[in-house]
């Protein structure tokens, strides 16, 4: 039958000639290829010791940001949770009390802020939705764990450490 597409290729199997039948030339060709690879530079990155730089727009683990005075920027407006296509974010808001101005920038803050890392698809829509520039996906990889409950990250893991501008060190409080 005539081929309509003209892409049909008829392969014909010729009987092997003498040199093909004694295998040796083909074997030497193969050997020369493998020995070339033997001396090639190996592209492996030895991971735990050497880490490859991430691209600039890599999206890793979320961090909740602080402002210049070390106060949490998040005002618990819920826009990130609303924008999240995977519904990974949940939070409980609370009102800032007297004397807590050094902890929270806005009058309302997130008392509980949880991201389920198993649901999160790291799309970055939460950081786009945030009006307070409080959440960024600028962390490392989310590490593996054994239990599902341990993948729900609370504020203890998400809020970035306070940075002491005077001594230029990270502090915990």
């Amino acid at each position: 039958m005539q081929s309509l597409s003209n892409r049909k290729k008829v392969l014909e199997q010729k009987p092997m000639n003498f040199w093909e039948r004694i295998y040796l030339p083909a074997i030497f060709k193969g050997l020369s290829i493998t020995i070339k690879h033997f001396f090639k530079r190996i592209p492996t990155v030895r991971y735990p010791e050497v880490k490859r730089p991430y691209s600039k727009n890599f999206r890793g683990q979320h961090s909740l940001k602080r402002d210049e005075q070390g106060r949490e920027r998040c005002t618990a407006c819920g826009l990130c949770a609303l924008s999240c296509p995977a519904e990974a974010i949940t939070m409980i808001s609370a009102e800032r009390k007297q004397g807590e101005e050094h902890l929270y920038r806005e009058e309302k803050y997130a008392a509980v802020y949880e991201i389920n890392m198993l649901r999160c698809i790291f799309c970055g829509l939460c950081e786009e939705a945030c009006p307070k520039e409080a959440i960024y996906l600028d962390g490392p990889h989310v590490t593996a764990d054994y239990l599902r409950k341990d993948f729900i990250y609370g504020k203890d893991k998400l809020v970035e450490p306070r940075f002491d501008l005077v001594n230029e060190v990270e502090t915990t409080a």
Partner: protein
Amino acid sequence: MELAFVIEKFVLVTAVFVISLVIAMYSTLAERKVAGFMQDRFGPDRAGPFGILQPLCDGGKFFFKEEIIPAGAHKPLFIIGPTIAIITACIGSAVIPWGQALTIGDRIVELQVADINVGVLYMFGVVALGVYGIMLGGWASNNKFSLMGAVRAASQSISYELALGLSLIALLMVTQSLSLKEIVAQQSGFVNWNIWVQPVGFLIFLVCAFAECNRVPFDLPECETELIGGYNVEYSSMKLGLYMFAEYINMFVSSALMSALYFGGYNFPFMYDLGLSQNWITIIGVIVFFAKIFAFIFFFMWIRWTLPRFRYDQLMNLGWKMLIPLAIANIVLTGVITIIKDTFF
């Protein structure tokens, strides 16, 4: 028999035994390293620097694994199988001349465990025995895959032993001796190496050695993809380890045999022109011999990571229809050339 002789032989046997075991051990690491480098990656490199502790880890793991003897297996033969495999692998190295004589004090120490005048024949017999280990193990497992592997091993061994023997006959016609010590001693210097007079014979011997060691491209007895491991499917723990060890020791011994028969063994170019004392020549000779062996072991691995496995009918075709006629032609040609040389020159 004097005491010094016994001590001398005992030390030599122990040294040869330990060296072949250590080389077999590190061949496993070298194999994985070579495989890695040929596939553009590093081999195992986590256990110690460059992974040099890897064989110890693997060996240790073998000892701690549970040892299973299947319910339907023939228990005595199941145990005898790997035993024969490792014993035949180890005793092959007895006739290999590792170097010339060392003079210690007023004693002359031959660096060869046993200089028997039928050394080549002995090697041949040991190699033929080796297949019993695989056969018995494969049959005793009471498993169709291991039986297939064992049957393949037996028929492959028989087919290629013929060509191996025939290629050796041509060599023996040249050397006029069956003693390995004498064959090596004849090849002093560089131009006297047997490879220059028997290139075709060497090629046949090399191919058959690959087949006898069950190495790729002749690893049909244990092809992982078809027979899920072949004759050693049912083996676990150190019994499996012994089979693997036997394979690597076989590789080492056949490398040694090839270097001794065709590449001058401990002989190296200009060995008597450097003005060294006999002891130094012996020591350098041993080192050279091992360098040749390692080169062959590397070649074994190089082939393994280059060629695919033969199909079974291709294997038989190559053995019976190509190598045996070629070996016979080689014998005839050698005979004719010898007669011409004797009558006219």
